[in-house]
Structures are given as structure tokens and as C-alpha cells.
């Protein structure tokens, strides 16, 4: 198909109210090939319907977004689009492509109505080479979409550490085949990069900083998270299931990431992330079939890795009960406990997690003394002036726990830390730790028997491949 080049010259021609698109299809001037505003990306390289939109007034962009046919690319010129409302896309094959994160900005700072920055539903969505600034709610929310690509984008808020910033920067949710690559998420009051209730995900080469939670993988299956950097968040990279969400998290790899200096004040206004202790590297909560390998952890004040049962957050097992008829995705092979009612399963259990080959330096020396769940306080009281062990496991649902005798501990949940040549490990009986005096932790030497297994039950997590993950 021959590429068609349209131009919406809303601002330049002083037109472009209701008729911007008609203008574009009928009479818009084709761009000069040397136009500096479209020097990086232009319609020339696009196959199929494409419109170039000049920065400035957002009306031409909004008119285009609300009238395009399926499979249309909107190329945004260099400069700032001052937005008065969210950019809403509800068309399959909508691609929004700017000139680079330092060149094209969608600025929602003067938006007076509630909304996200970019809000998209529609299969085969792409957003690339653009910054989304100061969105009232989420930076870029993509929902119920099969085929999502975030490439070289930035979601950020001007004020660092401000509780009134939007919740999530980059937020694909309830979507399939999601690629988040070479992007940045900063200053979100909840999670910078938040993958929720998704299936088949690659998160690669991103930088998350200044958020409460840097990077979250929630109720998601088949996710490969690698070569990312998380620093200066309250918590770096976390994996968890929440009660009641009808997809069971599983088969997640966190590998070869840099997770360091995550000691930012917790500025969340509430919710699950408000419970994250300052100085958390990684936790996996209510998760199974997770591999945490080859990552570099350093200078996370509370500690590097925690393996936690969902009951540590929500002790009421009925809240973790899911009717199987409502569950999306694969869970049948996981051996999840049945709920009290017929035809239900429960997903609070943390189990079958591999922690191997990670690097640890300088963490665990300053546990958070103020986190609402008092985890940091517990660690501080237990370790006194010694650094917290690199990997901490709560032992919930283990049939035996003993602080001194390895033979009197079980690894019923198949937590495997035997493959670590750096770092230390401890388990604790969290459910017995409601008040001082705390029972001592179990602190075995490498290879940390009985937690010395080195492989997941059911085989390693398989590689994730996505149709849109081709060299750029």
C-alpha cells in the first residue's frame, strides 16, 4: 500500500477547528521534506494512513485522534502540545509517534479536567518518541488491548516527590502482548512503570526513578523484565498479586537489572505501595514461578530481596478466593489451594521462586523505621547494627521453622536460593512476629539448605517473544 501523506496544519494556517481532518485529507499542504519539525519521524517512513500534526494548539491533535480510521499513524512534530484534556484513542492500529522524548512533549500541566495523559484502547497500539508531562491521573494508560508498544517514551511529573502527582506513569493493564522498551518513568506517586493484569510482556532497557514503586508487575503472567535500571524509588522492582484480580501471576523473570539506591521517601497517598518500606530493592508477594537472576543490587537501605506471602498484606484468605470461572489465563498446573467454596482457588501463596546469581553490595544498612507494616522496624530490631541479609523469606505456610537447626526447617513453598555465590539469606516466622520480643531469624550459610534448590518446579520460565519486538 502506498504511503499517504497528510498534514494537519491547524496552528500554522490558523484553522483547524472542527474541520481539521477534512482539511487534512482534502487540501493540506504536503510537508516539505526538510521540515525540521518532522526531522526524526515523518509520514515518509510510514506504510498506510498517516497524518503529521504540528505542535502548539491541541485541537488539531484532538480532532485527528477522535476521527481517525483504524490503522492510522499520527506523527507529532517537535515542540510542546499544550493539552486541555486527555488524548483518547479508541481505534485499532493507532500509532502515536513523536520526534523524541526531548523534542516532543504532551503537556497536561494546565489541564483542569480529570483525565489521564494518553488513554488508549484498541489493538496494535504504539506510542513512541514522546514525553507525557504532568498528567492529572496516569501518564499513559492502555487497557484491554492486544498488542501494545511503548518505545522510547517518558512519563514524568515536574515536581519530584509530590503526592499529588499522577499515580502511574506507564500503565498497560488487562492487555496482551505488551512491549515496554527504552523508556523512562519518573516521579509517579504510585508506580512509575506498572504492568497490571497482562499476559505476555517484555519490559527491557527502561529507567525508572523518583517513583514510589519503580517498576511493578502485578497479576501478570509470562513477563520478561531485563536490562532495566531502577534507582531513587521507594522500592525498585516488585512482583505481586493483589486479592481479587482474576488473573494469577506466574512465569516472571527479573534478570540482569540494576536495582540500586532505592531510598526515596514514600510519598504515596495510600494503597498497597504506601506499605513499601523505604529502601526496598525487590519483593515478590503472592507470586509463583518467578526467577530473580543476575541482577545487581546495591545500597537499598532496608534490603535487596524479600519473598512474601500475600497473607502478610491481607490475612483474610476469603479475599484471595477466585471463582475459577472468572479466571483469565493459565493456572491449572500451579497446584493452587482450593478455596472454601466449590469451584474456587486462592492465590495468596508465595511459592516456587528462584533467586540466583545476583550481585549484592551495600544494602540493608538502614531499614525504614516508619513503614506502616513495621517491616523495617522488625528488621532493625532483629539485625541491630548488622546489615539485613540479602534475601529475606517470611516462611508463611512452611510446616516447620527453627531459627538454629536447618533440619527443622522445611521448604514446602520451594523457595530456591542455592544458586547465589554473593549475598546472604534468612528466613523468619513472620506470623509469630506480631510484637517484641521477636523470635530470631534462621540464617543458614551458603548454599542455604533446605532452600538450596537451584531450579523451579515445572522447569525454567520460558522466553517471551512478541510479534512486534523487531529491531528498530
Amino acid at each position, binding site marked *: 500500500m502506498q504511503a499517504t501523506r497528510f498534514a494537519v496544519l491547524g496552528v500554522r494556517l490558523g484553522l483547524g477547528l472542527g474541520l481539521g481532518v477534512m482539511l487534512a485529507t482534502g487540501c493540506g499542504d504536503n510537508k516539505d521534506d526538510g521540515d525540521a519539525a518532522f526531522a526524526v519521524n515523518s509520514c515518509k517512513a510510514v506504510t498506510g494512513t498517516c497524518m503529521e500534526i504540528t505542535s502548539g494548539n491541541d485541537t488539531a491533535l484532538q480532532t485527528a485522534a477522535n476521527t481517525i480510521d483504524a490503522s492510522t499513524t499520527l506523527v507529532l512534530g517537535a515542540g510542546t502540545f499544550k493539552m486541555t484534556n486527555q488524548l483518547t484513542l479508541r481505534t485499532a492500529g493507532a500509532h502515536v509517534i513523536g520526534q523524541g522524548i526531548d523534542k516532543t512533549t504532551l503537556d497536561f500541566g494546565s489541564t483542569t479536567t480529570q483525565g489521564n495523559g494518553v488513554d488508549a484502547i484498541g489493538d496494535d497500539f504504539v506510542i513512541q518518541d514522546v514525553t507525557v508531562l504532568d498528567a492529572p491521573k496516569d501518564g499513559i494508560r492502555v487497557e484491554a488491548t492486544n498488542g501494545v508498544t511503548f518505545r522510547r517514551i517518558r512519563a514524568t511529573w515536574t515536581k519530584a516527590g509530590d503526592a499529588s502527582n*499522577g499515580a502511574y506513569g506507564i500503565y498497560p493493564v488487562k492487555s496482551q502482548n505488551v512491549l515496554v522498551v527504552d523508556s523512562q518513568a519518573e516521579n509517579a506517586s504510585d508506580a512509575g512503570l506498572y504492568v497490571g493484569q497482562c499476559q505476555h510482556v517484555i519490559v527491557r532497557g527502561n529507567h525508572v526513578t523518583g517513583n514510589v514503586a519503580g517498576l511493578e508487575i502485578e497479576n501478570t503472567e509470562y513477563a520478561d523484565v531485563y536490562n532495566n535500571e531502577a534507582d531513587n524509588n521507594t522500592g525498585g522492582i516488585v512482583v505481586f498479586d493483589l486479592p481479587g484480580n482474576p488473573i494469577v501471576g506466574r512465569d516472571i523473570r527479573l534478570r540482569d537489572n540494576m536495582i540500586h539506591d532505592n531510598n526515596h521517601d514514600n510519598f504515596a497517598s495510600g494503597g498497597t505501595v504506601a506499605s513499601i518500606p523505604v529502601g526496598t530493592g525487590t519483593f515478590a508477594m503472592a507470586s509463583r514461578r518467578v526467577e530473580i537472576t543476575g541482577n545487581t543490587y546495591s545500597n537499598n537501605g532496608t534490603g535487596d530481596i524479600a519473598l512474601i506471602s500475600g497473607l502478610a498484606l491481607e490475612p483474610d484468605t476469603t479475599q484471595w478466593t477466585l471463582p475459577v470461572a472468572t479466571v483469565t489465563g493459565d493456572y491449572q498446573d500451579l497446584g493452587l489451594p482450593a478455596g472454601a467454596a466449590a469451584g474456587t482457588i486462592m492465590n495468596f501463596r508465595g511459592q516456587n521462586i528462584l533467586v540466583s546469581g545476583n550481585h549484592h553490595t551495600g544494602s540493608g544498612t538502614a531499614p525504614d523505621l516508619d513503614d506502616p507494616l513495621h517491616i523495617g522496624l522488625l528488621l532493625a530490631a532483629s539485625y541491630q547494627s548488622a546489615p539485613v541479609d540479602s534475601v529475606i523469606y517470611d516462611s508463611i505456610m512452611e510446616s516447620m521453622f527453627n531459627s538454629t537447626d536447618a533440619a527443622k526447617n522445611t521448604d514446602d513453598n520451594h523457595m530456591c536460593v542455592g544458586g547465589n555465590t554473593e549475598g546472604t539469606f534468612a528466613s523468619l516466622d513472620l506470623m509469630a512476629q506480631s510484637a517484641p520480643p521477636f523470635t530470631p531469624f534462621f540464617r543458614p550459610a551458603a548454599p542455604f539448605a533446605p532452600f538450596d534448590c537451584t531450579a523451579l518446579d515445572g522447569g525454567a520460565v520460558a522466553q517471551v517473544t512478541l510479534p512486534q519486538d523487531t529491531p528498530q
Partner: protein
Amino acid sequence: MCPLAAAAALAAATAAAALAAAGCGGGSKGDGTPDAGPIVLTGPVQIDVNADPAEHLSDYQLFTFDAQTGFQFNDRVVPYDINTPLFSDDALKQRAIYIPPGAAATFDPENALDFPVGSALIKTFYFAPDLRAPADRPALVETRLMVRHDDGWHPLPYIWDAEQHDAVFSPAGEVRAISFLDATGAPQTANYLIPERNQCQSCHAEQDSVGAPINLVLIGVKARHLNRAYDYGGTTGLVNQLDHLTALGMLTGAPAAATLPAAYDFRPIEAMGPSIVAPADLDTAARSYLDINCAHCHNPHGVQGMTSQLFLDHTNTDLFHLGVCKRPGSAGVGNGGLTFDIVPGSPDMSILYFRDDTTKVGAIMPLLGRSLTHTSGAALLHDWIAAMPADACDMAPSQ
């Protein structure tokens, strides 16, 4: 030439000019095209589902409006009202149904009435300077159409011109500061959202399950919401809306309205506050409010509401999914520093009440269409939660 014909000719000439200009921009009112004056009805309603959206609302010939005499509807355009309305920053609303000749809607006991292809739902949003006197100097802001095509409902947003003569197709929407005195006489300024066309799907979209096709659906035209009397004037007078549509031959399959359930009538609460609700009716009143204000998203088929697993539709009987002691999935700043959606007996500890009461951008519920607090609605939810048997909800073990 008589004045009416002259106006029609002028309208036609204007439309022709607009069409001629449309290819190369210009042509919308305000660009120097002569003003055709107020809408004049020259014949039957003109809805062509095969045509592109009309540039002007007048092209559909649905109704006329005059600030002195109000709305006048064309044949087969029937106004209606609903028992508990959606709050939209105190906007006044005039709703109407159009069904093409020879066709009728089909009754449904639970979901929206099923309308034949070519039907339209017409909803005009307007304000008056003083809402204690809503008929004095009303000013129309926007008219939203939903038109039934072969493949489902198509949303068409129109914004009224400054002269109040016609409305222009406006897919980009607008955010407009609107000031007025509210029903108590207090000055208010709303950051009123005229939604983008795609934002129609924020409220009007459902799917059977994750990954299934997304369908546009109607919200207000369900039997329980329509089951109330409306004063049609003239010889018809005050008649039940469902019975009236049946009598007109525009609705089939509906039992007598007196035998059907009705959603709670919110008007007394709007006027007097929730204290006038009998304790035995409090749950019904609150659930009717949640049903119309929240359940378009918060139901098991709501494309965006599904994510939260909070289901506020009137059929939901599961307390967890109603929000009782439920932690929100991803409320972000919307949680207001609170932990559970509903803490029975404690509205001030309940995220549901916080989000319905707050005007903090980023935390407001419903997601769209509210920048001001609906005082009587929030008070109703407050009283409803307060009346629940107290339960502190399980807090985490170390607290």
C-alpha cells in the same frame, strides 16, 4: 415567500455553502458564514446511517430550541426523564428518543431497551444562571447523539454556538469553565467537560470478557430508570413513560409499567437531602444512585471498571465486589490515604465515599463529567455506609 420558507431556504443555502467549503476548510459557523438563525423543522427527522456525521445538529431535524419557549420536538421524537439521574456538574438535561417510522424498540427487563437501526438517543446539556430558576435564560452547551447503526451505536457530539441557533459537530470536545448559582443559591464554577468523541466509550463500552469485542451500550434507557411519569403536556398530560411509548407503538413487549420495578426517585433527596429517605429504603436509594452514576463502568462487563473488580451494578450481591473491606486494585491517588473501598459503619474511612465526595483532580469518581461535589448524592452514600453494621475490616497483622 413566507418567513418559514425563507428561513428554510437560507438554511439550505448555508448548508450548501458549508458543504462547498468543507473540502478545503472553513464553513463552520463563526468563520463568516451567514447565520441561518434558530433551527427550523421543515419535515420529518433526517437520520441516514449511511451518511457521515452531519456538520450541524439542525441537519437531523430533531428539535428546535427557544430560550423563552424551550424545546419543541419533531414527530416521533419523545422526551423522557429517568428516576435517578447521573450528576454532571449540575447540568440540566433534556433527553429524548427518536425511533424511525414503522419501527419500535423492544422491552428488556434488565438491560437497555433494544432500539431498531436508525434510532437516536438525544441528550442536551444546558445551564441557567441561577438553577433555582432553571427556565430563566437557559443556555445550551452540548447535545450528544447516539445513533443506532447496523453495527451498533455511534456517538456524535455537538457543541452549541454562542447564538444558541445550532450546534456543530465537535469530535475534539472542550473543557469550559461555567459559572452559575446552584440550587441552594451558592455560586459555583464547574470545569465542565464536553467529552471528546472517544471519551463516550469511557462510559458506554462493555465487553463479555477480557479480549472480547467491545460494544457501545446505552445507560439510562432501561426499564427501571424509565419507569416514572412524565408530563407530556397537551392532551396527553402526566403519563408513565413506558406505557406512553407502548401506546405510541414505539415500544413492544413491555408489561404494564405498574407491574415493573422502578429505580429510586432521587428528586426528593436532591431537594431535601438523604434524611428524608426511610431507613428501610436507604439501601435501595443508594444502590440506585450507584447503579446510574457508577455501574456503567463498575460492572463485570465494563471495559475499564472490570479492572478494579468493584461492581456497583444493582444486581451485584457479592459484598467483596461491592467494596466491603475490599482493597482497591490500582486506585493510585484515588485512595485518599485510605485502605478499603467500604469500611462498614465508617464512611470517612471508605474510599468509595471519599472518591464520590472529593473534587481533587486525579481522585474524582465518576471518572468523567464531575468537577463539583454532588452534595446530596455524596450525603446519601455517606448515610448508606454509616448505616451498615460496623466492621473495622481486617487490618494487616502487625497493625
